[in-house]
């Protein structure tokens, strides 16, 4: 923003008005009026120190992406305004990156002798997604308010808020690894080739693991500690076709899609952290699939893929959930969904029948009511819940565990069962 300087109506008050009062004072023999006019006339003196040039204002964000719940130390930076006195800003925060109170930030700060000033906005990322910060309306004043630059608009900037509020910790079990030599070593210690250190011998250790050189030197048996190689695919199916509940940000209530997106992000971060390959299929109005890969770059891709998830549908026929393509037959498929509608149950069942290990994670909020309250609302809601429970039971009968998302360890119990079933070769 590079606006120019212009005079304000205040100039009239310090030139013509005191001159007129002084004239009346002289003509009317009223020297007391001169005492009234003199301070106003003196207020024109700051015009002698004019601003040196057009000010430039930038909206500075801490980066392109922040984690949900994190502080966003955004700043408005003014430069090149030597001689200016006051910087006043009003920054709109229409989305979920906001100040602790209110929907906008307005402040006035002094401009330093070098013509620089900063306004700290102290925002916080309250909900995942893409949020605008701004536009900002900026006014720079000089010469006691006699000169002004602006109001000018600094365009809004978009910030990606990653759904990384909670950290998932759980069992590193996967029902079935891909069976090849691992491309990515897991962090689980065990019988593998990836050396992680040397430790004292313990009952159960194999003889071929003994490190003779260290054992002879120390006089005690030591073995090479290794990690297991495991290369499992985890595919997250995020169903965001319908939402349920109200989204209140990280400190408020969470809708079904909020919980689903946070759960998918937490699971992706966890499994990628263990060295597994994670893919993502999102169902909103359309379908978007990110193939399973490993590594930090994949986490970045998945998290940004989740940002575009939003439930926009409210009417019409239920959108389908097409079969994801290229999913490894041994992949663990985690269907993360509020389980609203019929097709999500059908898709989970179809994947299970195709031989995948499938877990359905239920993200429907506990306190779910209806916005329209009439005589039919409660019975309809009760009927809908009964129908949903019936479908859930059918899914469980098919061997697909359905668990409510409860943060860390949500999948542990069902993973043990699935792994045991996979090892014994019996149907789940």
């Amino acid at each position: 923003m590079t606006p120019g300087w212009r005079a304000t109506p205040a100039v009239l008050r310090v030139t013509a008005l005191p001159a007129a009062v002084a004239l009346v004072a002289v003509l009317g023999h009223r020297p007391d009026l001169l005492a009234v006019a003199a301070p106003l006339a003196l207020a024109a003196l700051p015009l002698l120190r004019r601003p040196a040039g057009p000010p430039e204002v930038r909206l500075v964000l801490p980066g392109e992406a922040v984690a949900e719940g994190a502080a966003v130390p955004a700043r408005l930076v003014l430069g090149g305004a030597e001689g200016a006195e006051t910087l006043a800003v009003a920054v709109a925060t229409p989305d979920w990156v906001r100040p602790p109170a209110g929907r906008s930030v307005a402040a006035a700060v002094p401009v330093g002798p070098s013509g620089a000033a900063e306004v700290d906005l102290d925002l916080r990322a309250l909900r995942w997604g893409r949020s605008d910060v701004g536009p900002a309306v900026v006014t720079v004043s000089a010469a006691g308010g006699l000169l002004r630059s602006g109001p000018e608009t600094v365009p809004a900037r978009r910030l990606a808020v990653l759904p990384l509020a909670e950290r998932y910790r759980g069992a590193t079990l996967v029902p079935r690894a891909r069976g090849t030599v691992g491309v990515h070593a897991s962090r689980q210690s065990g019988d593998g080739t990836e050396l992680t250190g040397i430790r004292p011998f313990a009952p159960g250790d194999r003889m071929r693991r003994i490190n003779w050189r260290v054992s002879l030197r120390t006089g005690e048996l030591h073995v090479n500690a290794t990690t297991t190689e495991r290369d499992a695919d985890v595919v997250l199916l995020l169903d965001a076709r319908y939402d349920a509940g109200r989204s209140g940000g990280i400190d408020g209530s969470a809708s079904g899609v909020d919980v689903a997106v946070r759960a998918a992000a937490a699971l992706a971060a966890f499994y990628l952290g263990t060295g597994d390959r994670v893919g993502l299929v999102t169902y909103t109005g359309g379908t978007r699939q990110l193939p399973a890969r490993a590594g930090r770059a994949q986490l970045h891709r998945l998290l940004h893929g989740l940002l575009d998830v939003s439930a926009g549908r409210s009417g019409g026929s239920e959108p389908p959930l097409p079969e994801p393509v290229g999913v490894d037959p041994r992949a663990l498929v985690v269907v993360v969904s509020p389980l609203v509608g019929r097709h999500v149950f059908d898709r989970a069942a179809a994947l299970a029948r195709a031989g995948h290990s499938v877990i359905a994670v239920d993200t429907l909020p506990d306190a779910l009511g209806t916005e329209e309250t009439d005589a039919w609302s409660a019975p309809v809601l009760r009927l809908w819940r009964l129908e949903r429970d019936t479908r859930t039971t059918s899914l469980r009968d098919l061997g697909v565990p359905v668990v409510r998302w409860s943060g860390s360890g949500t999948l542990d119990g069902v993973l043990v069962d699935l792994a045991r079933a996979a090892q014994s070769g019996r149907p789940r």
Partner: protein
Amino acid sequence: MIPRVALAVAGLAAALLPLPDPTPIGLAPLLIGLVALWRAVMRPDGPGAAGVLGAAALSWLVSGGGAAPARLVVFALALATVHSSAALAAGVPWRARVDGRVLLRWAARTVGTTLFGVGVVGATALLPRTGTPVATVAAGVVAVTAAVVAGAVVALRRPHALTRSAPTPEP
């Protein structure tokens, strides 16, 4: 909000300090001043503040003759505050959090110019009286006024010229 509150308080003081006579000619400037004050508080960037100052000066002319020096000083301070608070409020959003340093500089400048201006005028009362005709004095005032206005015009034109001659390059 602080500049607007200051504007309202100073405007009320400027309207009431002349102690207007309860006559139509005494109350008319008061009424005009209050209406202008309302407009000034709502839109500090408009002509409302000038209206407040003009109406207050007129009211003082009508009713304030023979006032005690202390009341005159307070009245001058009120008018200066109306001007400076309107100038500050015009550039600051309604609900803006105003930094304490901005308020301090604004208050210091207002009080400083008032005391200096009133002091200079008061000092002239100590000078020996001369028999200069009123017409001569009026001509002098007109000349000084013209000089002030011309100086302000020149001072205001320069920043525009500077802005035009040194445009910021496109990124």
